[in-house]
């Protein structure tokens, strides 16, 4: 899936985010993104379809997940989305 990346603080947060999104009917995958996307070293992300990105961010923001960064696919790989 060439989806969007929601960078979270740790693998535990990414897994909880996946569970929360799936409970809301949104398919999500936990992945380890390239370190430069995380910004301060190792980290994890949930990957979701761009169709569900806005809804996913709404859901996760409401549950205090501490989203670090959001990326959407671009011609060169990923482009950071300011949220």
């Amino acid at each position, binding site marked *: 899936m060439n989806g969007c990346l929601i960078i979270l603080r*740790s*693998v*535990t947060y990414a*897994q*909880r985010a996946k569970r929360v999104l799936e409970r809301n009917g949104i398919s999500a995958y936990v*992945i380890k993104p390239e370190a430069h996307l995380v910004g301060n070293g190792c980290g994890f992300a949930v990957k979701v379809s761009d169709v569900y990105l806005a809804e996913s961010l709404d859901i996760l923001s409401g549950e205090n997940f501490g989203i670090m960064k959001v990326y959407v696919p671009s011609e060169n790989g990923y482009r950071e989305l300011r949220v």
Partner: protein
Amino acid sequence: MTYLDNAATTLIKPQSVTDAVTEAIKTAANAGRGGHGASMRAADILFECRETAADFFGAKSAENIIFTLNATHALNIAIHGIMGKGGHAVISGYEHNSVVRPLAFLGDKGVSFSVARAPLFEPELMVEAINREIKKNTKAVIVTHVSNVFGYILPIKEINALCASKGIPLVIDAAQSAGCIPVKLNDLTAVRFVCMPGHKGLYGPQGTGILVCRDGREISPLMQGGTGSQSHEAFQPDFLPDRHETGTQNAHGIAGLNAGIKFVCKVSELYRHERELLDYCTEEIGKISGATLYYDHKKQCQSGVLSFNLARVNADEVSYQLSLCDIAVRSGFHCAPLAHETAGDRMGTVRVSFSVFNDFSDVETLVSALKKINV
């Protein structure tokens, strides 16, 4: 073997625990490190267990479950975290060395502690004793939920209410209660941490333990190192569980722990089963001439742990003689000399402790052997 040393560890585990560990060893790599399937499998194992434990112990979220090596490790995180900069603590007279020793060690850093002494199986007197020992600079009350020596169930709800009324954090050592007697964070508002092993009443493997945190971010970590997160930062992350989980986690053991907790959730009335065995055991040992039993005659506040002595043979010799009959019990001071002192015992005791896998025939085997030893 007739295994009656479940307060030390539950030797007999559910098959689901063995299966989960075996499967994890074959499939799970290092959790939260790589992005490959085997690493993700390990991360899934940890997260599933966090969710199971958070639900079972009433924690706010999966992150509030910290995996530790054992109960002692969990207690050290809590005690060093709260008391590390000095202050006063109150403990009960029935504490294990896993509480007493960290506090004694911190004496150099200005930590002092008072022991609330009250007779065995007198819960109201224990609450009064704790209340008497609280001072203006008391930073924490640290108590065992169940004495590992006598099975005495301390009045945790009343102690919680006392601490809540005075705004003092409560730390619970649930080494002997977790899995057998309910302890839920959301019912106990003063409780800051609950510390437990995975390998006793939760029927998980050795090398597993849990620290249940109300928050946990406010205290310093006991250890620092790799967490698989924020790796460019020199300091330990300030979020859970990473703040208190450093280095490779025991995914294989935690797979078993998760299966163990799920087993406990399915088996109803664990406490009642152990208590029935205790009552029968007490009745039968009580028939042996000169036997001394530490027993809650009111049947209100004792779990499936019984200490006793025979008149003619000392505790260690009884344990040795029983081992020759392939019966496993523990003797001595059980790493809790303070509890013996509080109860008035100076010689050590023989301790029998039950699990869900024991039945009345185990008690009969024990008593039959004791009658032969006590001659």
